[in-house]
């Protein structure tokens, strides 16, 4: 049971959150990007055994989407989120 640092509410239990998956830098909705660029950005990678920038939604708290950097092997949450 992770303790997730919500920037607003402080450290809270994992069961108050809903997982949003790894952060992905998706192409902007500018009508230009094609399927190939999108598929590479959206489908591939982002499965490190180590620090991962990811999104959590504080569904039972402040209802904010927060970004966390967590080591996927030790579950240690890295403050400040440098990777």
């Amino acid at each position: 049971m992770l303790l997730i640092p919500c920037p607003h509410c402080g450290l809270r239990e994992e069961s108050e959150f809903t997982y949003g998956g790894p952060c992905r830098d998706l192409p902007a909705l500018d009508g230009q990007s094609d399927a190939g660029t999108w598929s590479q950005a959206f489908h591939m990678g982002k499965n490190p055994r180590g620090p991962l920038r990811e999104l959590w939604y504080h569904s039972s708290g402040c209802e904010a989407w927060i970004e966390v950097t967590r080591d996927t092997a030790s579950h240690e949450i890295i403050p400040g989120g440098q990777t």
Partner: protein
Amino acid sequence: MGYSAFSILGHALTANKHWQAAVGTPEMRTSYDVVIIGGGGHGLATAYYLAQEHGITNVAVLEAGWIGGGNTARNTTIVRSDYLLNSSFRLKDFALRLWADLSRDLNFNLMYEPRGYVDLAHSDGELEHFTLRANAMRLGGAEASILTGDALQERVPELDMASPKRFPIAGALVQEAGGVVRHDAVAWGFARKASQAGIHVFQNCPVTGIEVRGGKLQAIETPKGRIACGKALISVAGASTQVAALAGLELPLNSVNVQAFVTEPVKPALDTVVNYNAGYSYVSQTSKGEFVLGGATDGYSSFARRGSFERIEDVLARALQMFPFLSRLRLMRHWSGIADIPMDGNAILGPTPVEGLMINAGWGYAGFKATPAVGHQMAALLATGQLPELLQPFAYERFALGAEQDDAGAGPYPWLH
């Protein structure tokens, strides 16, 4: 030296001194025809079928830990093929047919027990969807039935259908050929037969590098030495991303923790395998007497082989809805596996952009049931270079092409499958 009641008697007279090692400690050659990365059930099955079906024995299996120590040792031993998508159903049904004869083929008792797999539906609407699945199975040549009311109660007398529960039991899809197989024995049985055929199985031998030049596989590096080879298979489940990266390959999957647990062993009290579908909880009793239970994943990327205990509480709460007497038993041990789940929840099988390098990944927490079929088909691909029809729907490129195989329709969110 075969295994049989007679060989047991003979060896007992000589205090079991002369049993041969099932898996030896061979010397590593500098090149092999085929290198299989990953000594779990899938990798060892592929090795066995390379020798058995194609006479290819200049093969090395490289296992980072101990054989069968990954997801093969961590699943809840259930085998079945009750899938709606034709692609998933045909591959897993082929496996179910192979399980029936495998103990004899391997001369190793895998303890395949077709006790029946009972998948509970909790509303008429859900039962209608299960009927779709049962019909797909029947039309594909497998046996499946829909049971409701008294017929279901007779089939699973231990199931509590009467008392008020959060999600009532409307009926079930039943696959009688589904059941359980002793998971450890699968790895050992394949390893022993492959070793007897001259295939080299190396334990405590992680892969540290994959040499690719000109888009073509050249060699595999290990702490025990460099192996030149033209053909290799990546079959490492939860570590797929990390091993594929050694060859410069990206994969469309996330590794997610999935938990299972057992109770203390008791006398037989449940003969079938039963799954609760309002949030998974699959329950069966091993031949050693423990109830083994499992559920869905922990729902976030993880390699820690450790998860939140709340998942176990969810699985238990649902198990008690089905079998209230379980509340008297006690939890003996819980563990985790690393489920590599692709963006459509289905496996990634076949060639990769690197010539000669094949991939068997993305089985998530549904790979054990398919072990012999994956081994058989992957061996055919490695031996002949032709992509078998059963593997074609699971191509590496299917996400770029838009040909996903999404059984549950849960979408491009691995942690939801």
